[in-house]
């Protein structure tokens, strides 16, 4: 009898749980593993309702660093990846986890720093010279340290500046292993320099004493790409719905929508879709 009572209690609970969650559960939905920059910049809040209105598809975004987003997809836990580190994306493709890669849009990285500018680099257009100056002055520098697209870009810039960061890093180099927003908060609190994508910077609210110190170097170019996770690897991938999302992003309509997303009159992302995927 106790068993039966327990069973009915479980059944009641299961019903309660199912009914309280059904309001938000949707069948026609895909999971997109993407980056903190696309979420924190507010792009998805703007773009996804437009896509849903057109297709009825709910897009569930998991915002992670590029490295983690690709790993989520490698486990089969996402249908689409929308990230920004071309080398990592091409590796993902060559491992057979992705179907095709499409360029979607770009923006640029900016070097953010305190107004006091301890490394004396404000206004320079040469990003590697600026990095070298930060090292020479041992000025505080915050690194994402999370294998994200921005972290990859930062490591590439140290290399191009002729610095072996693994041996050069000291107390001045603060590897925090967190997202873009957290890195900006940390830099603000420590009067440190930090490499950020412009989208997150423009939408970031807690700027304090921080400002853009270096921008405009063509090595700061930041390309975003989108890929469908290979349904041959994971049969659970919603290939049709996922492809609809990709098709929308690279369509004239999607590209126009991306170009129209602005904060305080500033455009955050610049569409440059490739119709011929790599």
């Amino acid at each position, binding site marked *: 009898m*106790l068993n039966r009572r*327990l069973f009915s*209690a*479980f059944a009641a*609970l299961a019903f*309660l*749980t199912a009914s*309280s*969650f059904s309001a*938000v*559960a949707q069948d026609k939905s895909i*999971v997109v593993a993407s980056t*903190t920059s696309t979420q*924190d910049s*507010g792009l*998805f*809040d703007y773009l996804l309702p437009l896509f849903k209105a057109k297709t009825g598809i*709910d897009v*569930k*975004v*998991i*915002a992670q660093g590029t490295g983690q987003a690709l790993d989520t997809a490698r*486990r*089969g*836990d996402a249908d689409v990846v929308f990230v920004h580190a071309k080398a990592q994306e091409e590796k993902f493709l060559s491992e057979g986890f992705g179907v095709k890669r499409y360029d979607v849009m770009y923006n640029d990285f900016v070097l953010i720093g305190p107004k006091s500018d301890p490394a004396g680099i404000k206004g320079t257009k040469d990003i590697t010279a600026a990095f070298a100056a930060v090292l020479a002055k041992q000025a505080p520098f915050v690194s994402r340290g999370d294998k994200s697209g921005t972290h990859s870009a930062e490591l590439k810039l140290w290399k191009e500046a002729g610095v072996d960061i693994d041996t050069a890093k000291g107390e001045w180099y603060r590897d925090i292993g*967190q*997202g*873009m*927003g*957290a890195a*900006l*908060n940390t830099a*603000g609190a420590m009067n440190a320099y930090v490499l950020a994508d412009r989208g997150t910077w423009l*939408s*970031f*609210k*807690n*700027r304090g004493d921080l400002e853009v110190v270096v921008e405009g170097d063509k090595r700061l170019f930041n390309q975003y790409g989108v890929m469908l996770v290979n349904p041959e690897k*994971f049969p*659970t991938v919603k290939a049709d719905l996922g492809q609809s999302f990709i098709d929308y992003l690279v369509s004239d309509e999607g590209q126009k929508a991306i170009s129209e997303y602005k904060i305080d009159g500033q455009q955050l992302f610049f569409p440059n879709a490739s119709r011929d995927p790599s």
Partner: protein
Amino acid sequence: MSDSLSAWELIISGDATLYAIVRLSLAVSLSAVAIAVLVGLPLGAAVALTRFRGRTALIVLLNGFMGLPPVVVGLTVFLLLSRSGPLGVFGILFTPLAMVIAQALLVVPIIASLSRQTIEDLWHEYRDELTAMNVGAAGRMATLLWDSRYSLLTALLAGFGRAAAEVGTVMIVGGNIDGFTRTMTTTIALETSKGNLPLAMGLGLILITLILMINAAAWGVRVWSEQRAG
């Protein structure tokens, strides 16, 4: 949720997103506590009233697991539920159900441990009487559970507090998906990372207020039923 509004303006204007987040947080944490009660109370009572080999080890284990690191529980549940994991076929990673499972795992040891201690203490008081009245094992368990219900309520509230305040596990297994698995705590973490500190703080105060209200309601139920019992 609009960034320009403060948390209090969101409450006063009845912001639909905020209410959906609050409702989801409560549904997840209350479900987790309900499951934990169904598992933890019988487990606690059984350990309190029976003697077997390895009992001491089990008690130490349950007590120790009250301090399970949420991030480790989150990672474990994540690996189990991932499409590449043993339970991947059910496709419940990044859903509210995944968050319920993870929170329930955190709460079971709290309810089992605290109820075990409570029931064992009461058993010492009742032993002679219940033995003299020749009450069977199930009857003893029922009597002790009922007579310690107010102390068990505290255990339950401790479990709810743990579940509702939790952010590490739900972030990992829920994915913080807007409108689907975004809870109060993950929203606070997200708004903090966006540098939206006043909104994050306001949401934090709402969460604390909610937890206090639930505790006050539980206290009210206790006072009411004590008065009714005379």
